[in-house]
């Protein structure tokens, strides 16, 4: 459904992605994981055509991405970037309504179908009580729900999300993960999402792409890709892969931070005198 072959991307001299092959089948959740700066968000933007691939191609329903007009593409793929520092002070219902803009030439008048889809998205994301509140006055979790509702109003078969659950509290994280699963199961949406937390990917993804330095380090079913050794390779962190009774998927639990590496201990030793202990000074002053 959404595929990339030999995809490379870079800014000037710097290569961010090299020779990435990717495939997201219909009605599946595909997770992109990897350390900061490994190219996850860049890959997501290349898949939407927001960044131009240097080499390789992206295909949607078998057609190259560049054969689609902007509005055709926006009726097939929705994209939500990571953080929205700048939220416009528009009421939630208008924000969600902007999801309908790919279907309009001017956008002056909403059709009956638009209204139905906007109302459905607002109900589905449980925003009914917040309709006329402005987006900038919402809490982080509510705001993210409003953005997702906008994406749902866009009514696309493919949804690309960049760290949708980061910065949300535990309850909103669980609710949003459940929403993604429901969108896949009931509406056969294809969802490609960057996850900051490996466990979120393990929990809901059908396939996982593990990225390191702009390359695919591993791809496939989550349990095959995410192993103690692959995590150590990519993140340089020791972990246990744990199973709990009643949970279908494994969980990644990092080793404790009690054991300092020798190099870390040396750094602390070297700089110890630079961090003053203020307490004796304060007591003397009193």
């Amino acid at each position, binding site marked *: 459904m959404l595929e990339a072959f030999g995809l490379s991307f870079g800014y000037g001299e710097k290569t961010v992605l090299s020779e990435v092959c990717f495939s997201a089948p219909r009605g599946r959740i595909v997770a992109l994981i990897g350390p900061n700066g490994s190219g996850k968000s860049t890959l997501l933007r290349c898949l939407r055509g*927001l960044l131009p691939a240097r080499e390789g191609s992206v295909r949607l329903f078998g057609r190259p991405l560049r054969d689609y007009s902007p509005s055709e593409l*926006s009726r097939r793929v929705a994209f939500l970037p990571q953080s929205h520092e700048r939220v416009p002070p*528009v009421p939630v219902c208008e924000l969600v309504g902007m*999801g309908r803009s790919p279907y309009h030439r001017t956008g002056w008048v909403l059709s009956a179908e638009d209204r139905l889809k906007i109302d459905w998205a607002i109900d589905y994301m449980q925003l009914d009580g917040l309709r006329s509140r402005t987006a900038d006055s919402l809490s982080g979790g509510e705001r993210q729900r409003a953005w997702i509702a906008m994406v749902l109003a*866009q009514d696309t078969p493919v949804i690309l999300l960049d760290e949708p659950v980061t910065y949300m509290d535990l309850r909103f994280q669980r609710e949003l993960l459940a929403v993604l699963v429901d969108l896949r199961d009931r509406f056969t949406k294809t969802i490609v999402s960057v996850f900051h937390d490996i466990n979120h990917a393990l929990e809901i993804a059908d396939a996982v792409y593990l990225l390191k330095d702009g390359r695919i380090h591993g791809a496939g079913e989550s349990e095959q890709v995410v192993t103690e050794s692959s995590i150590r390779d990519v993140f340089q962190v020791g972990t246990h892969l744990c199973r709990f009774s009643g949970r279908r998927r494994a969980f990644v639990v990092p080793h404790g931070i009690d054991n300092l590496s020798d190099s870390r201990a040396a750094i602390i030793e070297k700089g110890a005198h630079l961090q003053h202990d203020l307490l004796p000074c304060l007591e003397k002053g009193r």
Partner: protein
Amino acid sequence: MLRKRALIIALAAVALLAAGAVGVAAGSLPFSLAEIWRGLLGEGDNPLAKQIVRNIRLPRTLTGLLAGMNLAVAGALLQGVLRNPLASPHIIGVNAGAGFMAVLAMIVLPGKVDWVTPCAFAGALMAVFLVYGLSLASRSGETVRIILAGVAVSALLSALTSGLMFINSDNLEISYAWLLGSLSGRGWNHFRLLWPYSAVGVAAALVLAPKVNIFALGDEVGSSLGLRVKAYRAVLLAIASVLAGSAVSVAGTIGFVGLMAPHLARLLVGVDHRYSLGLSALIGATLLAASDTMARTLFHPVELSVGIVTACLGAPFFLFLLFRRG
């Protein structure tokens, strides 16, 4: 919500008509209302009233209304497209470009008053072109780069304008009055120059108002909603510069209307440009026409520069509204 918006827009339209009517009725010669009305219709037995109302007050008031409307709509477009509440026509170089070319025309073509307006218009458009070109040359046409390029180009052109005025101090008073902004002596020829740009520009801005809304979501979300962000940004900037450039070239560099009217409109009906753009147009027109009436009647026989009145009238009111809403 819709009803409240409609009511506010209707009230603003009434205010505009009132400002226009007062602009035509008020002046140094005390005609009766009947004389003014008959003069306006071209009837009546007072030829002086007929001449002053039809050939002096009416075109001046109409020019003021259009210039105010243009500046306000340009400001609203720029604030929306550049996602910056401080944006106004002067920030993309319109005022500085128009001012430089106007002062240059006054020096190079002394006495040829008719040339000042087209030269100023050309200057405004050239300045915007330069600003936009510079912002494109620096990797991508990001909004911050447009603003920074605009500030730099404006600073340079303003300095050159000051230099010109310093060297050629004979024209100092005329140049200075022009730079402050004035509708003094604006007649039908100015109105005829202005109205086609106002009509086309404001109509285009209103048609594209929903696109301006999408700019608020950022370039990436805008693109993913199918908006050709770069193309629309260029088109909307072009509309804003034609609107502001035509207004400034006719009425001089009037400040504050382009900044304040859109803010007032948003405070009243919210950020949705489908409503706030039209309301900005009405508020800007009313504000400038009313300011001009005050500028020429308050300290009669001395006529103030309308730019002084817009700022003195607008700034306190603006601050009041801003702080009242917290």
